């Protein structure tokens, strides 16, 4: 565990797993639909109108 490369590798594996878990959970929860619903309409706040 003292080797920084091993530590980094563990860190990478942990966070890659966490990233996939978060993405899949978000997808199952329907977050992608929320993103789509927002993104297919002109976001007035984003362009400085709303």
């Amino acid at each position: 565990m003292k080797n920084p490369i091993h530590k980094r590798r563990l860190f990478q594996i942990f966070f890659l797993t966490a990233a996939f878990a978060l993405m899949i959970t978000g997808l199952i929860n329907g977050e992608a639909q929320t993103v789509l619903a927002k993104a297919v309409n002109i976001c007035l706040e984003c362009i400085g109108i709303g």
Partner: protein
Amino acid sequence: MDKRKLVQALFAFTTNAHVQGFFHGTIYRGKLKSACVPGLNCYSCPGALGSCPIGAMQAVEGSTTYGFSMYVTGFLVFVGLLAGRFVCGWLCPFGLIQELLHKLPTRKIKVPKKANDILKWVKYLILLIFVIFLPILTADKFGISTPWFCKYICPAGTLEGGIPLLLANRPLRQAIGFLFSWKLLILMLVILASILIFRPFCHYLCPLGAFYGMFNPVSIRRYQIDRSKCTNCGLCRTHCKMDIDVCKNPNSSECIRCGECVKSCPTGALTGMTTRRKPQKAPCNDKIAD
């Protein structure tokens, strides 16, 4: 045109290929927009085929159903872990725009190191306050909140979305008010600063760069110095447009992986790599530099 500029231009065009939107003052409304693009690319840009991750994060936080976006956070962690701020240097359209502005033949400004060291933290504050805390904490009784960063700061939205849509869409033009003037002022300041300073928005303000930058020291795609070849000539440092002491910290959070340092290294000591290689002792300093 160098390889990086070509990749930047191709990626910007590919992810903004809904060209007719620029003529009709409309945006793409297809299902691709449920996916995020890696760079700062406003989803209200008439050409955008995907969603801006910073906008998407605020959209989910500010919706009635969710308080925090696992989908977008997971995506950002994944991209950050793969490549860190490589996205900033190679795939972000707003980064490309700033670089092109910086090519205008005017006098350039080098921000003093002390000011640079302080200002670079502003982007982390923007990420925490405007992208995460305010959209979560200011939700109304229905759970809906404002996308604070997009609404009050983001110059990319004004440039990529606001201006093209307003030019082509008369009803939208009639709705212009104080907010647009404010955002236009920010955009003008960023444009002016970009002409004088290399990528000021990426340096000091971009929350996406702040997020990816946190992964630079541990990302899979990284830089490594072969200490047996390094002569400590300092060329990597002088060629770095992000003002990083590459020899000391090749995987700094500020590095956008543009590769100028790698190109400038006369001995081939500095390489971009994805494989594991054991770091070697340094002639230029005593830190492990990979």
